């Protein structure tokens, strides 16, 4: 009986496709208590091993059960700087919840939903996380205000360091702000997390293109240590004919227009192209975010993915929500050419069916084109969500060591440059928010050790 989880309540699919409000309502007190009571409080908690930042999961769940919510928040805060974010965007089904012993015979504990519940209660009630240590007079510069940079900043500020974050955009948050849409991660939540860092004394300088306005060598001179959390922001394109057509966009552009610039609002000053039918090419979280955003703008929105549904790299819940919202999944299909009219407007695509092969060394199944299956689909927008690679703008005028793939080479978190550390997507290539957070934490620890 007890093996079923308390299901989170959702905005109805037919309603939510007309708005950008959050899909999941989040647990109320009663639901959270009930779900927390399912936890077996394992002596050797497997869930913690699945958490990249090793949150003391059973302990915070126990605190929920005992109605000590502030304590629950403090337990999470010891390991995570952005609980309201991670509760919403972590791929829990591949991490903590995948390891939960209850999952063997029924539903795993909904650890993500409980984390979100605690974090939301903390925002609502103004809980304190931890008091920062007295200032130690050491200064650290952080480049990029995404999850890696924010986490690194939080840990250092709590330990008494004087931290300044440099961000090129006009708003802090990196991918949390420009990438992940409102209906999955409300921007007020991101703002609260950023505000709580400011409360810890972190300075955030927006509008600063590091590499141009100030360089890494400048930062090395002015600060005791530097952390590069510059992410992987450069969008990839396929390199097929017609890709420079007027209505071919990177998912980053669509999401930036909609999220960062508020393009979904009626009175927005930044336009989003109005179209009838859009194909989003790709199967990751970014593809899901883009296609579901377009759906909400009234577009007949499709995913085109070259593998099958089982291989979709996106978070499971996002795929389920996308299906419920009426997103059409054209799987095992890949574009080979984008078709345009004389004015360079998109009118369709030539696509081919794909054949799945054996799994390769990376565990992903190979795909080959069935050339005879070439056919046309009609559409007036194509969005490329093929992943991103690191952007080296911030690294200009430094001779930092990069790998063949253009990733920053690190030993631990330390780069080839004196007192310069790096972590997150800039080091690993595009990955998840939580892995970037883990990297930010690790770097903060190494910086503290080196400056001790």
């Amino acid at each position: 009986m007890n093996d079923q989880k308390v299901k989170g309540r959702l905005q109805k699919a037919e309603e939510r496709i007309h708005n950008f409000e959050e899909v999941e309502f989040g647990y109320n007190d009663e639901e959270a208590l009930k779900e927390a009571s399912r936890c077996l409080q394992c002596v050797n908690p497997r869930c913690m091993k699945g958490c990249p930042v090793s949150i003391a999961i059973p302990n915070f769940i126990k605190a929920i059960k005992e109605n000590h919510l502030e304590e629950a928040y403090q337990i999470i805060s010891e390991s995570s700087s952005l609980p309201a974010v991670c509760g919403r965007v972590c791929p829990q089904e591949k991490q903590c919840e995948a390891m939960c012993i209850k999952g063997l015979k029924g539903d795993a504990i909904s650890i993500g939903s409980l984390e979100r519940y605690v974090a939301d209660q903390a925002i609502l009630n103004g809980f304190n996380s931890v008091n920062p240590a007295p200032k130690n007079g050491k200064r650290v510069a952080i480049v990029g205000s995404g999850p890696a940079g924010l986490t690194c900043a939080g840990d250092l500020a709590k330990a008494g360091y004087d931290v300044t974050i440099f961000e090129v955009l006009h708003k802090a948050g990196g991918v949390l702000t420009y990438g992940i849409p409102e209906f999955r991660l409300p921007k007020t939540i991101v703002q609260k997390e950023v505000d709580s860092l400011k409360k810890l004394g972190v300075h955030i300088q927006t509008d600063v293109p590091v590499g141009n306005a100030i360089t890494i060598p400048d930062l090395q001179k002015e600060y005791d240590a530097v952390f590069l959390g510059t992410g992987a922001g450069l969008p990839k394109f396929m390199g097929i004919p017609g890709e420079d057509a007027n209505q071919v966009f990177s998912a980053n552009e669509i999401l930036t227009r909609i999220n960062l610039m508020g393009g979904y609002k009626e009175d927005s000053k930044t336009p989003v192209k109005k179209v009838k039918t859009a194909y989003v090419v790709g199967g990751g979280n970014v593809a899901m975010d883009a296609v579901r955003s377009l759906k909400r703008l009234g577009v007949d929105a499709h995913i085109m993915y070259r593998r099958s549904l089982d291989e979709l790299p996106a978070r499971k819940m996002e795929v389920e929500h996308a299906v419920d919202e009426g997103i059409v999944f054209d799987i095992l299909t890949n574009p080979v050419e984008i078709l345009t009219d004389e004015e360079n407007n998109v009118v369709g695509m030539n696509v081919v069916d794909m054949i799945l092969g054996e799994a390769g060394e990376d565990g992903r199944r190979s795909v080959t084109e069935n050339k005879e299956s070439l056919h046309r689909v009609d559409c007036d927008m194509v969005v490329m969500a093929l992943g991103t690679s690191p952007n080296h703008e911030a690294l200009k005028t430094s001779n930092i060591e990069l790998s063949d793939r253009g990733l920053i080479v690190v030993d631990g978190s330390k780069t080839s440059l004196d007192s310069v550390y790096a972590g997150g997507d800039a080091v690993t290539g595009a990955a998840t928010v939580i892995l970037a957070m883990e990297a930010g934490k690790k770097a903060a620890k190494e910086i503290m050790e080196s400056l001790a």
Partner: protein
Amino acid sequence: MYKVLYNKKISSNSYEMAIEAPMVIEKAIPGQFVIVMAHEDSERIPLTIYDYDKEKGILYLIYQMVGASTEELTYVKDEIFSVAGPLGNPNEICANPEEYRDKRIVYVAGGVGIAPVYPQVKYLKEHGFDIDVIYGSRSADLLLIRDKIEKVVKKIRYATDDGSFGTKGFVTDILEKYIDDYDICVTIGPVIMMKNVAELTRKYSLKTIVSMNPLMVDGSGMCGACRCEVDGKPRFACIHGPEFDGHQVNFDLALKRMNVYREEEKVKWQEMKERLSKEEK
């Protein structure tokens, strides 16, 4: 927020703004650009740096009112929400003047394109270069900052479509006449003008640098809105440019890509005008 010292009209549709932004200009070299936002909810507008005073930390911009967002910019007083920069790469001659020491250089500007040309010519003059400029517009009243540009050039020649000032005709007419005098041409202005200049100089194998001004959102390499085809490959104007080899740029594509939001922009501007006229009543 950045302090705005003034924001004034300098021709029938062009404006000049002075902003206190010391960090933006400290390391700026001509050819780079900034992105400004009038208010927190405004569009991000890329503008090439027109002038700066590094001692006082003042950035000067010239912009044209061409739609709702640039009209909104004209109402800015005292403070502006965001100025990010410098973005993009400096002009290659300004970045490495010694490499171009023995070259004869001509700048060809069209319309508001004189604004980004001015700091380059001024910078090169300060570095001991004698620069000629050819400057064209539709008519005399649309020629901007003549007094300033004339102070930094060796020779300037004007062309207007209607003949109201200088030669009647196009900048290309003048350029073709004197083309043997030059080793390098830098041209900045409307895409169609840069295309015509590049086509002319190609015939004469005159190296030509153009400054592309496509649509942009973030201006930091994140979105790809600004991609141009250069030498058959997609290049981002924001981080690979904005200046490119004019003989390798696909201008026809650039012209088409500029029109992506024409309908949306038109509606938005119309709505803005209606709102403003209602507010006046």
